[in-house]
């Protein structure tokens, strides 16, 4: 059989895998509904289903642009300093929850420097992914 559906699936195999997996989740969730589980639990799984559907959509959108994506390796320099600084800044920010909001004086400058690095990196034609 090589109907239009089959052909479509062959063209977008990645989206089919993610989408198909989301549907499997939905089927199992449907069965759980019949068992009278609490609303909170059902909503939780429904939320995961939505996330997976979004992921499948993202893959589909990319897949419609072409059979495969070129890998984004045209990065001038092998330099991810901006995201490393961001990670440190966010970790310091997270510590505000443990200690005090005063830690913003460490977190904010780190994030600022990270932003400067990112802008400079973009300026040289680097990607942000």
């Amino acid at each position, binding site marked *: 059989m090589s109907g239009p559906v089959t052909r479509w699936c062959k063209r977008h*195999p990645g989206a089919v895998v993610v989408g198909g997996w989301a549907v499997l989740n939905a089927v199992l969730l449907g069965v759980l509904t019949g068992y009278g589980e609490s609303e909170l639990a059902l909503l939780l799984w429904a939320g995961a289903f939505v996330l997976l559907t979004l992921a499948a959509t993202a893959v589909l959108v990319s897949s419609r642009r072409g059979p495969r994506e070129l890998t*984004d*390796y045209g990065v001038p320099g092998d*330099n991810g300093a901006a995201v490393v600084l961001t990670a440190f800044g966010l970790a310091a920010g997270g510590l505000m929850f443990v200690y005090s909001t005063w830690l913003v004086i460490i977190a904010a400058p780190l994030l600022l420097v990270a932003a400067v690095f990112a802008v400079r990196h973009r300026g040289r034609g680097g990607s942000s992914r």
Partner: protein
Amino acid sequence: MTLAPDAARSTGASRSVRPRSWLGWAISTDHKRIGLLTMGTAVVLLFLMGILALLMRSQLAQPEQQVFSPDLYNQLFSIHGSGMIYMVMTPFAIGLGVYLVPLQVGAPAIAMPRTTLFGYWLYALGAVLMLTGFAMPTGAHADGWFSYPPMASSVYTPGNGTPLWIVGVFAATVGSLGMGWAVLWTALRKRARGMTMLRLPIFTWSMIASTLMVIGAFPSLLAALTLLAIGRVEPSVFDSNVWNIGYQHLFWFYGHPVVYVMFFPYLGAVGEVLAVFSRRRFFGYKGTVISLLVFAALSMSVWGHHMFATGQATNDYYSLTSIALLVPAGIEYFALVGTVLGGQLVFTTPMLFALAFIPQFLIGGLSGIMVGTPVIDYHVTDSYFVVAHLHYVLFAGSAFGLFAAVYFWWPKVTGFLLDERLGRVHFVLLVIGTNLTFLPMFWLGQFGMPRRVATYPEWAGFGALNLVSSIGAAFLAAGMIAFAMNIQVSFRRRPKAPADPWQGHSLEWATASPPPRYNFTPHLPLPPITSNAPLLDARTRQGQGRA
């Protein structure tokens, strides 16, 4: 592909950073470096968390011992369990994918290299934050790896240990999510020409199934941690049982699937090792691919089996789906055994670990079906039976897969060989130690020893089995010393590894050891991709291999 030369031109670190310096490593967007950083960090933490386990086993070796206070003991098992799950087995599994998936699909780099690097650093910083708890006056987090409220609320667990744990685990989980998404995208969208979905190696498929679960389930842990954080600021939240049970749902919606994230990649690695050292094609490829996806979907449906004893979950459904897991698991076992049977086995160290994985994981899986049955679970819940079960899954199973992977891919990623003799010593000590340590725990649990107790009275009669278990732990320690020595010897003597020391099947073995920056070059081109074992096909065509 013809893209590699352009890529090579733009290589090299930016003007100021030397690529081989430590800073060059820390900010590199090369997936191989990020993968190695992730796995290296995880292995260091594996040793550290193992030391915490040894401390516990020393206290439990005899009844009524007081090496550590009960409070410190609580910190030990909490950080040991949290560390092993959030900071060792999960990140290593994803890190292995970060390293291998781009190579296996024939891509010059990972999709979203920056997201991947960001993920690594969030993970590493998260691990540090969690461990910092030990330096706090009130000590580290002490409410176990799942940290239920109201126990973990600020009323019953004051101090900074738990907040540090929350922030650390949150960061590490966001990191795993980022890395997982990049791996998934690479497998789906960055495949080289000719690499169709049904030519992906079994390891890459295991990563697809795992990262689907990462996307579906990990956000739920972030929600649970957020709820716990809110409840620590505003403790009245946990006056209502809705949010205590709600936390359990949020937690286990993540907590069960993560077990498969800590299992599938190791299963995939074991599959590759078994096929290569049986000198034949992986058996039942398509069936295994489908069963991995079904297995993963089912594993999203079973979380309530961790809540049987609360009386507030629909036990029928969860026990039904838990037992249904037997079907895809059975298919996978069939494939593993079918690959080995009738092969020409070569007993290298990775093969030994992969072979031991099969029966040992079976014990973990079958005891899982037992605790997935409410009538049995009511009896053994919160006892050492559960500790035995989870260690058979995670240690006797997954960690053996981890070691199989380390021995198998070490020559590829470092360019050096590991010592086979030390490898065998490591293996033998680990098999003895694993079973001596964890088998007696099934009986301890069945006879009523609760988990998470700092000690036990003499009259309870738990002494003999606990002593056996602690002796086993000493074997494990000796085995891990052999492993550390092996790594050290390899780095010191640097015995040179060829590109393909094992007659591998998948694309990573077609390039140099270690692979160049963009994996394949005009001098190391991609071979024709004819199946999920293109290198085996090439050997067969040349009449040297046996299919």
